[in-house]
């Protein structure tokens, strides 16, 4: 009987995988998202190859220069190469954003699994915690937390995790409550499989899809949060290149060198667009037929 249950589960997963393989190239938002984000990630990964200057090295004799063959996008107020800072900024911000989404994803998913599966007081306490966190606006809470904890990437991870896990917990819990009444779970239960095995081997693969889709749009929020914190001087610390800090540093020059703030701003918009498209595409692809 237990073997039968696992076969059913695997069949469901296999069906998803099959559908995914068949349709991804016919989903424009997915293709668009992957291409934009792929280019960004590629540039970030290959940063040392696509730039000619150290993003932190200053040249105080050649500040605020327009584009030249050596500095493609010119230099900033401290004579640093804007193109290098933009590319290395992508490296910093994308890395921080992906890592920042990982912790809440894992924690939230686990909490959602357990609270949805067992219900009872565990579920009550979890809901209570979730409601407390949800009561505050996302950015307000993140900024307040980073302000209290102090600036720097480690504290960004902590703040985003404290705030971010609730969404995953809610999504996964909802899915689990529905899924745990389905036949393959009932079958697994009556076959006497351990709770852990049911949770991780059978339930998790079936409920995680929505969490993954959400994670993609969550990265958009995280990137915006990281850039906002950088802009406020609470995020990634100098001299490391970061889009938020670039926007803030360039703000004084808005009426004379508008590009200093505008270019990193455009980079944020493009990245957010890529991630949003990707999230849409994934949602389309993974939606059960």
């Amino acid at each position, binding site marked *: 009987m237990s073997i039968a249950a696992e076969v059913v589960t695997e069949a469901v997963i296999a069906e998803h995988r099959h559908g995914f393989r068949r349709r991804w190239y016919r989903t424009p938002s997915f293709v668009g998202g992957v291409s934009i984000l792929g280019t960004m990630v590629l540039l970030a990964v290959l940063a040392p190859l696509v730039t000619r200057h150290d993003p*932190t*090295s*200053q040249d*105080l*004799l050649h*500040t*605020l220069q327009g584009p030249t063959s050596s500095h493609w996008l010119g230099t900033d*107020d*401290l*004579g640093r190469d804007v193109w290098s800072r933009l590319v290395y900024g992508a490296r910093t911000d994308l890395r921080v954003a992906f890592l920042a989404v990982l912790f809440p994803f894992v924690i939230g998913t686990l909490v959602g699994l357990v609270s949805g599966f067992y219900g009872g007081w565990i579920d009550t306490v979890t809901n209570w915690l979730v409601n407390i966190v949800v009561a505050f606006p996302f950015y307000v809470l993140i900024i307040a937390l980073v302000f209290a904890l*102090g*600036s720097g990437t480690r504290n960004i991870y902590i703040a985003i995790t404290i705030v971010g896990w609730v969404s995953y917990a809610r999504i996964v819990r909802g899915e689990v409550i529905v899924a745990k009444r389905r036949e393959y779970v009932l079958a697994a239960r009556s076959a006497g499989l351990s709770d852990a095995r049911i949770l991780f081997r059978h339930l998790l693969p079936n409920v995680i899809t929505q969490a993954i889709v959400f994670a993609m749009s969550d990265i958009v929020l995280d990137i915006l949060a990281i850039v906002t914190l950088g802009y*406020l*001087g*609470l995020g990634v*610390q*100098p*001299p490391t290149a970061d889009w938020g800090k670039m926007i*803030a*540093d360039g*703000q*004084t*020059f*808005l*009426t*004379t060198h508008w590009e200093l703030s505008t270019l990193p701003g455009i980079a944020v918009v493009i990245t957010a667009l890529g991630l949003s498209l990707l999230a849409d595409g994934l949602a389309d692809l993974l939606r059960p037929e």
Partner: protein
Amino acid sequence: MQGKRPLFFLAVVSGVVLAATAALAASASPTHRAATPKRGGSITIARIEDSQSFDKTNVFQNESIWITEQIMEPLYLAGKDGKTLNPWLATGYSQAKDGKTYTFTLRKGVKFSNGKPMTSADVKFSIDDARAQAKGWGYLDAAIKSITTPSPDTVVFHLKFAWAPFLADIALFANGIIPNHFAGQSRKAFYTHPIGTGPFMWDKRVVGQSVTLKRNPFYWQKGKPYLDKVTWTFVTDENTRELQLRGGQIQVDEFPPFNSITKLKSTPGVTMNLFPSTRTDYLGMNESYPPLADVHVRRAISYAIDRAAIVKSVLFGYGKPANSFLPPQVPYYSANAGGLQYDMTKAKAELAKSKFAKGFKVTLLVGAGAQVESAMGQVIQQSLKGLGINVVFKQEDTSTEFNDIGKRNYQLGFSYWTMDIADPDELVTFAIDPAGGAHSFYTGYNNPAVVKLSHKAQRETDPTKRAQLYAQLQKQAASDAFLNFLYYSPYRWATSSKLHGFYVYPLGNYHLEDAWLG
């Protein structure tokens, strides 16, 4: 005042002003007609922050002080050079031989904006109240023992000891004259809408938005002021202030950023003014952090900072590297103070002599959103990296930053100073005397030899000998590298070219009675 926000001032003038005003007006607008002041019109001044209080005796913020100075005036005022003291509400004074008694004769015909004449009783009351303010500016009046009023236009100050900076102290805005017994109001109520003898009188305030003053019809300088009303707004974003100025919504833009100076100079309809100032910017080193208590480390850091490069890239050339903790506009500034200048070889040699030759980690406090600090911080971070000193940024909002430096809760931090009186004593005591109330500019620096020189200079009434004492003091302080003197910079004010006679004195204040619209 020392500052981040706070600051201060007082100041100046006499007949010279009219001529100078005319000259300035002429330079702003070459037509002959423009040189004759015209009555009428109102202006708006957009500032970087809102006023905190109008209690001149207790407030340390420039954006408050500069408004109180339009309402309340002292007996003497510092002139356009920031050094000479000119009679204002007094017409003159005589000094007893022992240097401990000053007798002032009050100007005739001076009236408060409520129409009542000013008498010696008002003067005594005003200064007695100012010197009683222990948490305010009272410390500058510490030499006064008592004040007597033998006649309605005579005031006598009895000092505890001969005190060289006395006249400069009397010219402080905190010693401005107000009506006896606050014109029958409570102290608190009075300072919500103060009364004085100044060119402008209280009109209205919208907290968080604006302060408006109107023309004082009883002003003692005949024909002045020319303007009917002046409104101070606050607009934190510098780009917005600039756009408002160009759009004619405001006539004065307080502190446009350094990078826009060149452009504003050639913007039609805008006059970009750079006035000689007493502003000096510093990098403070807190000696409670052990590496910074080592004089060799402090010298190494001072040598490692390329001030000329900072002036060029951060100030866009609108400044000068500093060589003393005193600015050139203050009396007894010494051009030969010998403040350490950029020299990486010497920096490395000094660090090698210290106990921290291998380098160390140090935290630099930077105001969030403070562009100049952020840029300078990054330049300094890169310079010190060459010495093996790892600078880590700690960003705080500017008021927290200001408080943390005041509590000596920092390692490296930026601060600046502008003078409030035409005498070095105010800054010298604040900066090098651990008993001065600020732990030597919040650094913990304590060199008894320097403190002794300062005390001697306070009581030395011979200007030549005083100059020698202060020169010696500046040299020793520079050699101890107790602060990093970074640069001197001018006051930056962009005005509408229709506005004439707007001039900012080295102590930071401006005389709106001379301003007019052409």
